[in-house]
């Protein structure tokens, strides 16, 4: 059985191909003007890598912002279900996923089969997303990738009090002007980011494996703070966190094939 999943977001598009449960290909591109074009392009790339053509795919599910009207998809599903399923596929002990992307933040819980139990999404603003870290790292004059390790260079992270990322930016500049260390500020920012995600996910978190996905998952400082706040280890996933949605879609497509087969 060969299935595919395609995730068309607002910034990037991903495609994953599974063959009898094994990962054959995973591709990521920047989005094109239309979701149909994005999905077709990324799908073609994945097929090329896998050495397959579209007819070889038994079922395909599309997800993400641009999931509707994808011509080669049999069905579309929410990125929430797909994200949950994708993380579960990587590690079946996982029950809670916190996805901190560039533009939103979600908390997802799944059951012992990886099926969606509940979810919560950040509604309001940049404060709970990767955008917050981008703004602050710029204010600090630090590369985004270098922000995470700062948490390991100090025992005294500074408290960033402002909830709003705009004001937090001012607060950062103010602290810098006062001569506070970039390390302590950076570590404080990582902690503040983790606290926002904690506030979102705290009420939802269930027993079992816990993981973090999305761009911010690459920030080791945030991960460490989350482990402290949630009092649990964050399971590191074996794949690029950006493909989790498409991966989950491909896994869910397997079920589609099975149910169609059962009907036949």
């Amino acid at each position, binding site marked *: 059985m060969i299935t595919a999943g395609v995730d068309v977001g607002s910034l990037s598009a991903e495609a994953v191909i599974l063959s009898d449960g094994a990962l054959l290909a995973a591709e990521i591109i920047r989005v094109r003007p239309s979701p149909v074009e994005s999905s077709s392009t990324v799908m073609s790339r994945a097929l090329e890598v896998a050495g397959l053509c579209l007819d070889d795919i038994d079922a395909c599910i599309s997800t993400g912002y641009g999931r509707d009207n994808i011509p080669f998809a049999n069905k579309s599903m929410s990125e929430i279900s797909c994200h949950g399923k994708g993380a579960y596929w990587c590690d079946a002990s996982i029950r809670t996923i916190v996805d901190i992307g560039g533009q939103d933040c979600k908390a997802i819980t799944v059951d012992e089969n990886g099926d969606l139990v509940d979810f919560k999404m950040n509604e309001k603003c940049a404060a709970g997303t990767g955008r917050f870290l981008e703004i602050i790292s710029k204010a600090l004059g630090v590369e985004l990738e270098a922000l995470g390790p700062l948490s390991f260079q100090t025992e005294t992270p500074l408290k960033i*009090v*402002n*909830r709003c990322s705009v004001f937090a930016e001012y*607060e950062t500049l*103010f602290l810098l002007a006062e001569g506070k260390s970039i390390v302590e500020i950076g570590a404080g920012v990582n902690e503040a980011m983790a606290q926002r995600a904690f*506030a979102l996910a*705290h*009420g939802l978190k269930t027993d079992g494996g816990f993981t973090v996905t999305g761009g911010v998952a690459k920030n080791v400082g945030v991960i460490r703070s989350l482990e402290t706040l949630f009092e649990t280890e964050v399971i590191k996933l074996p794949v690029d966190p950006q493909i989790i949605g498409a991966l989950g879609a491909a896994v869910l497509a397997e079920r589609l094939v099975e149910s169609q087969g059962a009907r036949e």
Partner: protein
Amino acid sequence: MEPVPSELKGIEIFQRFLTSFNLFKFALSSFDTAEDLMAAAPELAKSMPAYDVKVFMSFKPDLVAASFHPKNRNVILKAAEAQAEYWQGVIDGLKAGDRKVSDFCFTQGPELFHALGFLPICTATGMAAGSFYRDGCEDAIDLFRSMGFADHYCTVHAAYPGYVLNGNWRVPDVMVKPAAPCVSGNAGYQVLSRKLGVPLVVYDSSYYLTEEGVDHQLAALKRAITRLEKISSSTLDEDVLRAKVEESNRTYALLGELHELRKHKPNPDPGLHRILDILMLVTTLGEPSCTEYFQLIVDEAQARIASGERIIPADKKELRAVHTWAINVYLPEVYHWLEENLGMTYLSCGLSYFIDHQIDTTSVDTMLRGWVQRTMNFPMGRQSISYGDVWVDDMVNLAVDMEADCGIFAGNVACKQAWAISKLMSDKLEDEHDIPSLRFEIECCDKRLCPADEFKQRIESFVEVRL
């Protein structure tokens, strides 16, 4: 939120307050200055219990420093003594377990609940954590919010359920509140009622601030009393009520005097203790300690008038400010900062504007009627529950009557219903009385919305530009 150690289960926040006030008592009676205290601190810490050290380390340094200032220290010490006694009483009472516990919402005086045989604790005292500690009461607020409730609920009323749910504050036998001040304040009570099964007794607050309105609210209160008597298993004790009310009458008379004294130019009453004023009224009203506290404040103010001693530096021109509804609970020390740095004195505000109402102690009925009238007119309750005109007129009258130079309206975001008339108020002040005002958002128990530096900076800019 930090889990509560088993020995402090149900009393953690009360113990924290007790220890805090004991520390303030000790510090203010043993040292002349904050610097002396800090110099002795490392040595002292060695002999103090670890818990006390922990509480001490959690104080806001600016608050401690401001408390030592000669104009503040006596009153702060007086409050600390009274509060230490009060919280010890609460802890002892909870341990004895001989009375049912009623958590009551402020705008109500504790006298009635004592007379009904309860051990009464005011839910608003949770905000004291916001005032004293670096970390405030945001942990309790966040716990409440993490259940899914909106972050625009009044943080005074969000901290309380957070403390109860986490075990810092014992689950009461009943919660009592009038419908005032507002919907935003009511949510937490319904939550605790549903989640913990605590009986919730709410009686209607009158929209009309008239004699008829008093009748209506009194009738509602009497029905509430019938429900409460069943819970406390005792009937209203007229003698206890009378004793408490006679004492609270003395306190209220002093509040009336204090209001008049603040009209003096320059204002002889410093602003640091205002949060403690509310705290005293919702805890010890009806006790001699409350009367003595306000007597001291009145005496000191009168002495300053007589001697010409100012509460602002000699080189500063007095800027007389009327504030608005939320004393920003998390920054009591900022009023001291405003006095010292800007010469800005704190005339009054929506939470310290007490109308002296003497309760007629002839009978239970007259006493209940007077108690209801006080509840109706309690600062902020009065303005919140009724027409917008009441708020606008009250604040404008205050500003004019007290000859304010400006209005500082650091408004509680949760009072979203109140913000609707804030522009009406500031426009009227400016257009009709040439008194400029500054309006900006805070959230009274959550410093993250407007941290201290930003608060100060906004007022500084306003003073520079407008005054």
